[in-house]
């Protein structure tokens, strides 16, 4: 394993130093990434966070029209309550704070603890659980939060920027999650800096279906196939759970080590699938947005849009990882 790091212990802080140096719109203090301009009076604050290694998620989505603060944990490890408490207090502009939490035991527990301990701030929480590879049953921790986290952060962020009250921002965030589904496929494992070796072994001949974003092995292993077939598997899984119809927001997301050229190849197949179901790609993203370190592979996320959601998606956003309209 070769990585562009100084030490495995310092990688999160070193990367945050790089973010601070690169983005004057951010201010970073005690492992929390804030908008440099601070909270806006009367605006609902948005806080998210999770393990590091998913960049640009979440810290790269701090800025106008999206998050107010992000709490990066160690690599693939949820942040601790202290970070979340600091962030929640700091971004409160008097209108309360929404926690956007991906559904992982660690994220849920640490955000819950923080929400209990923070005082004097009105806190609501939305749980993102879009990954159709996981059954939502008594026998699992529930569906994982993956690519749709970006959709929730963007759309809730736009609504908060407009001055909507906390209950409404939380409700729409939940609605976005309800209308979104994802499925991921890995061609290779990732390697965490601490472990120093691939999390799982995947032979040249196989791929993992239904992976998360932490290098967890997937639900099944099948022989490597063409982009068309792999996109078909992912889209059937999504469509089987939430039938595609009408206007869609479609993201083909790279896991971190996948070249953009290949993601476009996948996107072409995904778009063809969508057309085949009589739905329409109304908005799209292609790139590395919700990653898993150096893993090669992709995930597809879709959201069933309606006019209000489309308007919020299109609203200006200015973050290191997502930017338009200003």
């Amino acid at each position, binding site marked *: 394993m070769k990585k562009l790091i100084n030490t*495995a212990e310092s990688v999160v802080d070193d990367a945050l130093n790089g973010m601070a140096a690169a983005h004057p719109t951010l201010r970073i203090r005690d492992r929390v990434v804030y908008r440099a301009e601070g909270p806006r009076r009367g605006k609902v604050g948005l806080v998210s966070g999770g*393990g590091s290694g998913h960049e640009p998620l979440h810290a790269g989505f701090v800025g106008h029209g999206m998050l107010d603060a992000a709490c990066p*944990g*160690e*690599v*693939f*490890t*949820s*942040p*601790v*309550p*202290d970070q979340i408490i600091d962030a929640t207090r700091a971004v409160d502009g008097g209108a309360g704070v929404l926690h956007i939490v991906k559904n*992982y*035991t*660690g994220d849920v*527990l*640490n955000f819950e*603890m923080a929400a209990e301990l923070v005082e004097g701030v009105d806190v609501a929480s939305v749980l993102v659980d879009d990954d159709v*590879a*996981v*059954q939502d049953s*008594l*026998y*699992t*921790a529930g569906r*994982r939060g993956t690519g749709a986290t970006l959709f929730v952060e963007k759309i809730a962020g736009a609504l908060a920027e407009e001055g909507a009250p906390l209950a409404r921002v939380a409700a729409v965030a939940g609605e976005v999650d309800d209308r979104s589904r994802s499925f991921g496929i890995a061609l290779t494992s990732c390697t*965490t800096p*601490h*472990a120093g070796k691939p*999390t*799982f072994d995947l032979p040249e001949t196989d791929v993992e279906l239904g992976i*998360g974003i*932490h*290098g*967890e*092995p*997937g*639900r099944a292993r099948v022989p490597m196939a063409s982009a068309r077939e792999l996109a078909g598997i992912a889209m059937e899984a999504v469509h089987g759970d939430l039938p595609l119809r009408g206007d869609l927001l479609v993201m083909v997301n790279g896991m971190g080590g996948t070249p953009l050229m290949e993601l476009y190849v996948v996107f072409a197949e995904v778009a063809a699938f969508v057309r085949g179901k009589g739905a329409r790609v109304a908005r799209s993203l292609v790139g590395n947005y919700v990653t898993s370190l150096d893993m090669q592979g992709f995930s597809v996320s879709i959201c069933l849009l309606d006019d209000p959601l489309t308007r919020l998606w299109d609203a200006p956003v200015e973050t290191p990882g997502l930017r338009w309209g200003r």
Partner: protein
Amino acid sequence: MDTDVLVAWFAETARLVHRERERLTDLDAAIGDADHGSNLDRGFSEVARALATSPPDTPAQVLATAGATLIRRVGGASGPLYGSVFRQMGKSLTSPVTLAGFAAAFEEGVVAAERLGKAALGDKTMVDALVPASRALALAVRDGVGVREAFEQAARAAADGAKATIPLQARKGRASYLGERSVGHEDPGAASAALLMAALATVVA
């Protein structure tokens, strides 16, 4: 049992976790995200440091410091869960500390983690090692067994509980995403819980 024994317990746990760090991470790689070893190594070494830097006056303070430090420094699922065990133990422990008092406080700590994580025995989590350890302590108290023997039984129960997670299919935590593929692997949190109890047996031996 005094403050020193509890401090020694965490020092020994830190040593064991550091030594077994790679094994814990490997277990987590198989059915999770390959960070359990580094999470706990970071956490318990911080606990040991905190206890060494400002030595607590009471057994309850040792546990409170351990719980708060784990919650403040670990993150992940294991941070709040282990943190809750010790935080609750610190609240429940009465002084002077007897084996019965320790066993009761430990039981309450384990219940706190069960509540927080909503995991039951057989879900293939740390609970599968902690609950048997707690029961072993309760039995030892009932049977009037000595501290040393009691902790040895608890350590054995935890180790057996950890091994018993191997054939299970996970129903909680990250391993549950794997469905049937989680079968055949030892749960990393159960394995670290076994280390925790082994450390306890060592420091009173």
